[in-house]
């Protein structure tokens, strides 16, 4: 059905690009968040090209505790790491932990959520029981127990961190997918698909999944954020990868060696700022995607 007020007026449909740009103007959170993220990724990528981070970001690469200078723009830490190289490598490593755990989280969460929502019955009951049990244990406490008892403290790598972080990364996605599937399952288009002889998998992938993409994107960002937060918590408590210069480990060492008290402010400030930027960009993107997925939020701003 076409609606035109003046039937003689020429109908000009704005191009796809204009539409996208128009939308982005209404969604500043998404724009700022993506720009921040691009800045961080650019910093990591260009930095790794210009600086040899595989040696400079590790101990004994520079004289210890130098304040920022022409040679060491961000200064150096007590063990002789060049903090500029540490920041470059740290942003990439921290991002990698988040992406790995977030990916595991979204894949496992989607599968689990679909199983629970689509098939229902005892599968749903078991999954609900499991999430209820896991929700009862505060995330940090569970992760501390996993990290402190299962892995040898001195052999932690960024893969271990990603593994521990993904223990809980799937739950948010699973709950969201389950709720969505429950509400979509009974819609007419799904019954139509079933009547026309589509199999379960085909319905899931061709009918249900496309409807959930914005939700899945938002929950992926959420999972990445959660994973970075979880690994930071563990790193702050000394359960992180002791040999890797992730941002969280850098903060851990700075606190451990009382950097503030010793007036080595640069050792604390840069990693804290880097992590704040990472979290802020992800939170803004998440909020922007939320607006995209759930336009009802729009009315208020």
């Amino acid at each position: 059905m076409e609606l035109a007020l003046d039937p003689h007026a020429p109908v000009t449909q704005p191009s796809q690009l204009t539409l996208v740009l128009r939308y982005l103007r209404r969604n500043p959170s998404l724009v700022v968040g993506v720009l921040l993220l691009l800045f961080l990724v650019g910093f990591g990528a260009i930095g790794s090209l210009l600086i040899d981070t595989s040696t400079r970001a590790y101990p004994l690469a520079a004289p210890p505790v130098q304040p920022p200078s022409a040679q060491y723009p961000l200064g150096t830490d007590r063990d002789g790491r060049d903090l500029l190289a540490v920041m470059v490598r740290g942003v990439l490593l921290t991002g990698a932990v988040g992406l790995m755990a977030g990916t595991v989280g979204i894949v496992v969460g989607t599968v689990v959520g679909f199983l629970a929502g689509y098939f229902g019955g005892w599968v749903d009951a078991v999954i609900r029981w499991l999430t209820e049990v896991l929700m009862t244990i505060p995330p940090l406490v569970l992760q501390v127990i996993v990290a402190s008892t299962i892995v040898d403290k001195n052999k932690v790598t960024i893969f271990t961190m990603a593994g521990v972080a993904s223990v809980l990364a799937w739950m948010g996605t699973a709950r969201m997918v389950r709720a969505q599937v429950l509400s979509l399952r009974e819609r007419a288009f799904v019954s139509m698909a079933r009547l026309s002889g589509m199999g379960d998998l085909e319905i899931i992938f061709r009918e249900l999944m496309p409807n959930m993409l914005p939700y899945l994107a938002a929950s992926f960002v959420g999972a990445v954020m959660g994973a970075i937060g979880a690994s930071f918590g563990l790193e702050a408590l000394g359960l992180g990868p002791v040999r890797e210069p992730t941002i969280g480990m850098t903060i851990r060492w700075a606190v451990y060696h009382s950097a503030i008290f010793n007036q080595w402010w640069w050792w604390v400030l840069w990693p804290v700022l880097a992590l704040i930027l990472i979290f802020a960009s992800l939170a803004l993107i998440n909020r922007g995607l939320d607006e995209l997925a759930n336009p009802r939020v729009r009315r208020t701003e």
Partner: protein
Amino acid sequence: MQLTYLIRRLAFLVFVVWSAITLLFFLPRLSPINPVRERFAELQRSTGWAPRDLERLVKVYEVKFGLNKPLHEQYLEYMGSLLRGDLGYSIMRYPRTVGDLIAQALPWTIGLLTVTTLLTFAIGTGIGALAAWPRSPQWVKGMVTPLVVLAAIPPYLLGLLLIYFVAFRAKLLPMGGAYTLGRFAEPELSMPFLLDVARHAILPALSLILSTVGFWALGMRGMGVTVQGEDYVTFAEHKGLDLSRIFYAYYVRNAILPQVTALALAFGSIVSSGILVEYLYGFPGLGSLLNAAILANDFFVIYGIGLITILAVAVSMMVVDLLYPLLDPRIRYTRA
């Protein structure tokens, strides 16, 4: 029936708590790490002291902590002692019990977190309500997004910035601890002591408040927007009621319900949500205890803290379910 509902809810609570405890029991025992041997290895690394009969020593302590028995016996004993309220002995401060250490730390944590939770609830809910109120100035409406971004940042990071700028550079407040150690030998119930504690608690509290206010503001704004459109609010406006009356009695009153349930849930995580900040500020609560236990591989203390946090969360979840029908007369629990 309300009573059958209550019984079913209680049974589920017991079941969930039992599952969580069982998980906590078996998880560490799947690993090859022996807590007692780790403890001695740690001692050896830090002091250079090497016991000659390490293996015999480990055996003696294993017997003492009951680690030498078959797994199912350990499990039964563990559950039995939990039912008696016995959390076992601490490895790092051996003659003292886990229950004793936790009882010493818990009041500090509960004190700090109760105050911050109530304050954030009040501030955040207030901002959220005003942000959704059409007559508010633009800057109030624009406050929610920055607060939500702030909420994504771990309180630990905000705490570090506060320590550096407020405590270290400006020297306005103490950098850490719970009270001035030179002035008071031990905690006492006197006005100067309480004031001293309050002064030490400002920065940890501020780090927690800044990073959670956004959560409350966002929730309240969301509810506020839906209540805004309700007929009874429009009707109240047309009756010419006092604006503040409409704001409090018609709008806030109806929008605040989910916030109250969220508050009850937040009280459940009171023992766990401040862990990192407490550790950062050397505040003698559960966070510092947990950090010490991790450093010393004191698994029994770690489980004890885990157990307390699980109980708190589970009980608060149930309280929320039971409070619901009291708070919202539209909800009646009948057999679904």
